[in-house]
């Protein structure tokens, strides 16, 4: 079996990011404890994806710090962060559509592989050995685990949305994540797919020992699987705590009401209390 990783601690400290005059993130601080699932929620445009982009290094925050196991990574180049154990999925799936599922997953391991250009041109020897070890490991720990055996040779473009999301999780897992950032992992999925995904995320936490930070609008799912919830609104933290506490918080209810879609909110909250993901 795979060796469990030591889960990482992520600290966000006084982070601010603006685009021109717009403060997408405004002095935000929170911790993600090792080996837990933390959910980052909030209405549309609250700054959740921007926060992910700061953590993975797309955006350069103007103020504040991001610390990974105590080490300041705020200015670390994205490929280096990948090597340190940052892995993420994207709100609007960023798979390589022309590649097969298998190649997409293998791509995730890039930073941990050693084959150089000369070995790659020759293939036989080092490159072949490394590729075969990777293949065996991907098959055993990821493809079986996420139940995507039947699609491994298919091009990603031919897959349903739900399966693509699963493949993106698979690729992130191939990165040997110590912290996994999931941007809306169940958006656009039906009930059954959502339950599967919730189960996979819980399994990753338990079996892989990975720290998980997740953005999600599906309140049922958030309430079921997260250990800790942080609520953003207009780039600021307006509440944080256990899922049950946050759900009752008047600030949170008001923020969602203010987002102009109270009916949707009530539905989400109702889904939360009736228990979204059974498998959890």
């Amino acid at each position: 079996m795979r060796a469990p990783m030591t889960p990482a601690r992520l600290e966000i400290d006084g982070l601010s990011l603006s685009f021109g005059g717009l403060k997408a993130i405004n002095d935000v601080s929170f911790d993600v404890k090792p080996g837990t699932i933390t959910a980052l929620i909030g209405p549309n445009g609250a700054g959740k994806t921007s926060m992910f982009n700061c953590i993975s290094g797309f955006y350069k925050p103007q103020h504040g710090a991001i610390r990974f196991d105590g080490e300041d990574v705020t200015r670390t180049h994205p490929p280096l962060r990948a090597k340190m154990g940052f892995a993420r999925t994207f709100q609007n799936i960023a798979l390589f559509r022309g590649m097969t599922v298998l190649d997409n997953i293998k791509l995730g391991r890039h930073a941990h592989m050693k084959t150089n250009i000369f070995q790659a041109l020759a293939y036989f020897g080092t490159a072949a050995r490394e590729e075969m070890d990777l293949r065996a490991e991907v098959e055993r720990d990821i493809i079986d685990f996420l139940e995507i055996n039947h699609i491994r040779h298919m091009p990603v473009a031919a897959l349903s949305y739900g399966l693509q999301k699963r493949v993106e999780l698979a690729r992130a897992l191939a990165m040997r994540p110590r912290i996994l950032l999931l941007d809306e992992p169940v958006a656009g999925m039906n009930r059954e797919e959502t339950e599967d995904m919730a189960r996979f995320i819980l399994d990753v936490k338990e079996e892989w020992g990975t720290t998980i930070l997740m953005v999600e609008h599906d309140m049922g799912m958030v309430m079921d699987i997260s250990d800790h919830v942080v609520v953003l609104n207009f780039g600021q933290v307006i509440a944080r705590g256990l899922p049950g506490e946050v759900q009752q918080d008047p600030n949170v209810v008001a923020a969602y009401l203010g987002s102009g879609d109270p009916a949707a909110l009530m539905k989400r909250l109702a889904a939360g209390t009736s228990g979204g993901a059974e498998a959890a």
Partner: protein
Amino acid sequence: MRIATANETYLADEALLRTRTQWAWLGLFALVLVAAPFVLNNYWLYLACLVAINVASATGLNILTGYTGLVSLGQGAFMAVGAYTVAWLSQKTGMPFLVNILAGGLVAAFVGILVGIPSLRVKGLYLAIATIGASIILQFVFLNWSSVTGGARGLAVRPANFFGTSLTTYFQLYWAFVPITVLMVVGAANLFRTRIGRAFIAIRDRDISAEVLGIPLLRYKLMSFAVSSFYAGVAGGMWAYFFRAVGPESFTIVESIFFLAAIIVGGMGSILGGIVGATFMTLVPEILRFGVELASPYVSNAGALLSPIRTIAFGALIMLFLVFEPQGIAEIIQRVRRFFHLWPFKT
């Protein structure tokens, strides 16, 4: 023990050729390559050598443009660097063929890395123009660095010295060039079975998320430039041994366009595409010329009339491909393959 067997299965699953049919085709192709020099006349041998040179260079450009998505119109200039290197070495040193060719590739690779530096900032058409700019500078160097390049007169190339034998006939050169090209094509195919090739494709398809996956963009873009221009340099070196003279007019922007057209017609991002594209672009004008010669007894004033028709037909063929088969000839081959795969006799 179990892992070992599993790995062998995966090795078979990830082999370049997986089916018996594919092996049969490869065997047939190898047979043709070996038999060809014994049946072809000198003119066709000349063309076969030219095809080998062009396939090597087109495959290199395919790595850069087809697989990494970096459009380059500098392939001709990189070939020139390889050709000049070989010419200079052949005159100043008695070094053997293979050493000179390798040196041609390495010098071109180094120049390629320099030319590739803007690729971190500019893409697409802008990068293509930047590579034209670099070609102009190289052209200037070839013309004016007379002590090394021979200036406007260029350099003569001494015959290739292959383990004591000098290679002078097309028959001999064929046996030198074809194995080199085969090795380079296999190398390119291997590349895309490893992390390096996957990284190139990732950069082509979404360079920003490639970075988050742990791929340093600049390093891999420069690596792609290096490999691609190494291929061009080796091809240019073979070219020098083939034509035995190199000058500033040997490789112009037209050559660079030729190779870009070759991979577009053949199929970008497909190893087979580079091969068939370069072969097509090299042979079709000759085949058309052949047609013209057949027709000439029946047409009065044939020479004046048919030669422009041949040029126009060639240009029109390229345009037709772009319109009707933007994925290139490789895609047609895939379609034919799928058709026979579904053939009633084969399940």
